[in-house]
């Protein structure tokens, strides 16, 4: 245990990297995922097909395959970027597919009858979205998006498999260098549990805040 505290700075650096990757990855994935969802529901056939294909491809290939493809495959065609950026980009692209589905399922929860009623009352498309669809859809998106966020946080650990020294990578390094596997794993597990619990709490609070007051 004392070794861990003596080298706490390293571990803290790992935590920082994990958090940075989470925030950057989720931010980019959110933007890309919303754009994909818009493509998916748009009446323009090529964009719709593009989104459908993207989701099918990205969702069915394991994240680790994407990571090794990006990290070891892309340099073969002359695309070599800093490791951290490459890994974060791969994650953002992967999770964008899941966010697209979460956003779409949120929009689907709005009953079609309401939309038809609003149109019968003369709502235009943007009014419809702003006053009717989005306020309701966003509420039911919080929970699935929270799930994606937690999954993303936990899966940033896969970056360790391609050489990023974030929390999991740092733990592996600890166990090999100082030969203290059990305490190192215990501390890291505790940190991950804390992160997930915080994510769950945050999601729950956000959901309550957005809930309808009846």
């Amino acid at each position: 245990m004392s070794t861990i505290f003596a080298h706490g700075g390293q571990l803290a650096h790992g935590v920082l990297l994990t958090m940075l990757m989470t925030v950057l990855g989720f931010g980019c994935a959110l933007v890309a995922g919303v754009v994909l969802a818009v493509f998916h529901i748009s009446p323009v056939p090529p964009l719709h097909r593009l989104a459908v294909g993207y989701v099918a491809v990205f969702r069915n290939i394991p994240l680790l395959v994407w990571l090794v493809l990006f990290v070891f495959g892309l340099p073969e065609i002359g695309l070599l970027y800093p490791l951290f950026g490459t890994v974060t980009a791969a994650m953002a692209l992967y999770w964008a597919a899941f966010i697209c589905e979460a956003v779409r399922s949120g929009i689907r929860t709005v009953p079609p009858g309401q939309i038809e009623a609003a149109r019968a009352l003369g709502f235009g498309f943007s009014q419809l979205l702003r006053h009717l669809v989005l306020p309701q859809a966003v509420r039911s998106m919080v929970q699935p998006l929270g799930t994606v966020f937690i999954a993303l946080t936990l899966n940033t650990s896969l970056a360790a498999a391609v050489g990023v020294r974030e929390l999991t990578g740092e733990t592996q390094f600890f166990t090999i260098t100082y030969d203290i596997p059990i305490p190192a794993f215990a501390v890291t597990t505790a940190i991950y549990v804390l992160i997930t619990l915080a994510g769950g709490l945050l999601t729950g609070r956000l959901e309550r805040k957005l809930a309808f007051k009846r």
Partner: protein
Amino acid sequence: MNTGASTLFDLPGPAGRRRIRIATVVSLLLIVVAVVAVVRRLTTHGMLAADEWRVFTQWPTIRFLLGGVWATVLVTVVAMAIALPAGALVALVRLSRARVARALGRAYVEVFRAIPLLLLLYMFLFGLPRLGLTFPVFWQLTLAIVLNNAAVFAEILRAGILAVERGQSEAASSLGMTYWQAMWLVVIPQAVRKVVPALVGQSVRLLKDSSLGYVVSYLELLHQSQVLGEYYHTVLPTYLVAAVVYIAINITLSRFAHLLENRGLRGVRRRRHPESTALAENAAIGSGGRAPLIDDSTV
């Protein structure tokens, strides 16, 4: 297709149709430009040369990759076969009336859902040997996947059991069934049907988890591709082939599960009250005909 979304738009009039046509042309152009850029990038680095891809037409290579597919499927099937019953057990423990058991079940789920699979694998690789516990590579991978997925399956099944109306188990006990009889004969069959889409989604995820064999050097599809790619110096093509194989397996799995689900529903329709069929169908439609990526119960 996209039900609900299509009602977002009015039937387009002449101006709307024109706008859609323009957008179609513009987006097609952009897609073509992107594809051309990718193809040019690949050709300038010689990736589309026949030599890079020839190995994949040769039987030894194909056999080698099929070996990887077999290992992936084996890990998936064995892990599922253990994790699903284990998850069911944990779910029942979490719903039991004994407070200590409930707390233990809860602790298991919270901890093992929160540990990244890779960290769990490292524990099997570096941690447990220190305690004198060493497993063969296959079991290092499979047990890590089982520990993680049992927690998720437990949450899915628990959500399903809780979603069955109280009246069902009350009716069962008023007919003189014991707790376990009611659970086994009345509640669980309905609960499982409710969560089939989530279970399918999770099994796809479990299959994807098996790619972590790459880390413990278990020769499943991804690790096999790494070996192949480094041997022939065709890293990018080999990983692309592996990616395509993963898509094929996962889509087959989802389709198969969907088929199974439909057959199950038909069985219900023949035997049961029409209302329960409608309920089950709603559950199926809720999945949009596909495996949901992430079920709502996992937070």
